[in-house]
């Protein structure tokens, strides 16, 4: 039988280089930024500062894990910010009934809404952008309703629950460890299970995935469920940390999360990316914030400018890499 020689060998080098850059670019930039920061500022490269960055990033990290699944599947979830705030209020409210309720109430509600969004998206074919936009609005309304139009701030009344957000071990608080644990679990789920492969397949080509026997509707529903659950978990932990469920509408949290995921190398078009990149992206944004604080004279507004510029730069580079890979 004749053997068929596949692939032209020539593009291999350039293709591998740009692939490496895409998958690990965020890590490399993170390393470079940390290095620069350590050289430039004395108080930057300290364990204390590292711990601060880790702690403040952990909540976005948890949400970003869920968002990574959604974006790899080719979708987007704009409702995570509202989910986060709603979960905080529910957790604080539920804490008067014990730690179990404090945790389960937000998880149940945010998970259910995530599931609902997933069902609508997978069954009706409506754009994830608009369905989760509706989710964003709806959950904000729900949060207002539950907290007396934003007037009442529930205090966390269960110490066991509060310790989930505040207990510290080796200088790092519980949320950091929870994030690490979730990261490992999620990485295994994404890279080493049939479900994870299905997520990549759907993001790469939904029609092909369907023809290859992937249960597209079920997988799509599940990723939004995961996203909702994780956003709910992050919100609950945040309430535990602050000892209260704040109703300040942190507008734009979902956008920070999306920015972190995109900076981490996950393509918005779907089918590519990973959790390592997302973690790198989250940390990178945290490091940048810390660096700006180091300078002292610059305000957090300046950090916003840098974040925005950085995001723009990253996506342009991604597009250039994409074009280099495709030669067309």
């Amino acid at each position, binding site marked *: *039988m*004749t*053997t*068929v*020689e*596949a*692939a*032209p060998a020539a*593009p*291999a080098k350039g*293709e591998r280089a740009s692939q490496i850059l895409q998958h690990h670019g965020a890590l490399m930039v993170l390393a470079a930024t940390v290095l620069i920061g350590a050289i430039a500022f004395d108080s930057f490269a300290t364990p204390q500062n590292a711990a601060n960055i880790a702690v403040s990033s952990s909540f976005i990290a948890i949400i970003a894990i869920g968002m990574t699944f959604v974006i790899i599947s080719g979708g987007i979830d704009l409702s995570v910010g509202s989910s986060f705030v709603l979960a905080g209020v529910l957790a604080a409210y539920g804490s008067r009934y014990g730690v179990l309720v404090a945790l389960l109430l937000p998880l149940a509600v945010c998970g259910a809404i995530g599931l609902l969004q997933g069902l609508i998206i997978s069954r009706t074919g409506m754009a994830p952008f608009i369905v989760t936009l509706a989710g964003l609005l709806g959950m904000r309304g729900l949060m207002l309703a539950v907290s007396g139009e934003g007037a009442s701030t529930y205090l966390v009344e269960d110490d066991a629950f509060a310790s989930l957000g505040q207990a510290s071990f080796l200088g790092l608080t519980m949320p950091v460890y929870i994030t690490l644990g979730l990261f490992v679990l999620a990485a*295994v789920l994404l*890279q*080493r*299970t*049939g479900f994870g*492969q*299905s997520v*990549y*397949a759907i*993001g*790469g*080509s939904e*029609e*092909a*995935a*369907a*023809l*290859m*026997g*992937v*249960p597209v509707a079920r997988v799509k529903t599940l990723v939004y469920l995961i996203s909702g659950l994780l956003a709910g978990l992050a919100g609950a932990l945040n309430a535990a940390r602050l000892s209260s469920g704040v109703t300040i509408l942190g507008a734009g949290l979902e956008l920070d999360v999306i920015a972190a995921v995109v900076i981490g190398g996950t393509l918005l078009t779907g*089918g*590519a990316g990973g959790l390592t990149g997302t973690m790198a992206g989250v940390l990178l944004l945290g490091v940048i914030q810390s660096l700006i604080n180091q300078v002292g004279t610059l305000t957090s507004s300046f950090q916003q400018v840098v974040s925005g510029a950085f995001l723009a730069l990253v996506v342009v580079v991604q597009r250039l890499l994409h074009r280099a890979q495709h*030669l067309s």
Partner: protein
Amino acid sequence: MDSGSAFVLEARGISKGFPGVLALDGVSFALAAGEVHALVGENGAGKSTLIKVLTGVHQPDRGELRLHGGQVSFGTPLEAQRAGISTIYQEVNLVPQMSVAHNLLLGREPRGRLGVIDVGRMYADAGRVMSRYGIKADVRRPLRSLGMGAQQMVALARAVSVDARVVIMDEPTSALEPREVDTLFGVITRLRAEGIAVVYVSHRLEELYRICDRVTVLRDGRVAHTGPLDELERVKLIALMLGRDTTDVRLRGQTEFSGDHTAKNGQPVVEARALSRRHQLHEVSIRVRPGEVVGLGGLLGAGRSETAKAIAGALPFDGGAVVVAGHAVRKGSPAAAIRAGASLLPEDRKAEGIVPTMSVRDNIALAAMPQLTRAGIVSEARLDRVVTALMKRLRIKATSPHQLVSELSGGNQQKVLLARSLATGAKVLLLDEPTRGIDVGAKAEVQALIDELAAEGLGVLLISSDLEELVEGSDRVVVLRDGVVVGELAGDQVTEEAIMSAIAEGSAADG
């Protein structure tokens, strides 16, 4: 070959309709184990619908399916797959970003400890599958890094390795080189020996006669004939497909082309000079004179569409030049090409042709807008005049010019695109598969129109994967292979055999 009383797969009296059309009307079809069964028919005959019914994409309105004698019904492609019916399509329906190995084993990845995917074993298994089918490639690399032919082979390997009893192949060779076709046929022979049944859908008659045992001919949703292939003359087969008389086919040919154009001599209306584009075109030169129809022949991937697009300014090129009506045209600018008088009818009218949200009128006027505008404001009266005239001339069937173009039939949509090109005052038309995917009646109209336009002095560059159409419609044929011109045929030389050997000879030349 065991054809016994029990067939592996049977369709009995299948009917399937869509709004406005009955795609299948009482179709019965039987497939025996170890048999390679050809399924043929013109575009619109119902082939793809039948395939979709057999593979669970559609459910029949009437009739039943039987697998190994027992009645079955498939709600989804997954169910059909699980039942042992595997399919490979003309477009490679795999995930381009994922690795070859991941694509091969999606849904069946080998598990290691704790039930998680064992990546090492996956790559090893994938490597074994690939070498079993004689495909050399790094299974770790993304699928899209492979050439189209190799990708198709991966799709084949996947389809076959899922313990299928029936493998359906829908136009599997359209992207393959002759060497790869040999490999494919080798695989099919092995499948046959293993008792697996193959349904082979293709319009490439030479291939059918080479590999298939029996044939079923569909026409207008019904079975026109079914029986052993070696008992059927080629001409008779074509006649059955077209619904014409055998002698008729022999005399008049199979298309509406009259075959006699009188090319006006003189300056070519378009000249492509030594067009080069990395990996796709190499020094391609073509000339079309006014009133002449030049056909572009070659396999998929030969560079035909790329040549047409390069001339139309839709594809930037690295070397060479395009001259339209004596004027050099700036490369990479469709607007410049249109201004100079060259207009392209794209191959994929859905993806690159019609704007579905706009009316017929606005679609027709789209490329000619700058000529229909004064000071930025559209001159509706002039637009209406142009559109009405074109709709009448091309006999475009629509309730009104304001009807949404997406509601028109494929044939009428194609005519709208043709009207769009004509509205720009084009001197040369670049037609890429102008009669693909439209019903027989519209096809005839379009072919006759091309004749008329050539007679009026327009130059035409014709790309068609329908060899008969190419042969009968063209005055000259330029044959491409891997982006290089390997032959030019004129007058009596323009025959299907000559084109096929020009393609084949090209491969022998560069060993």
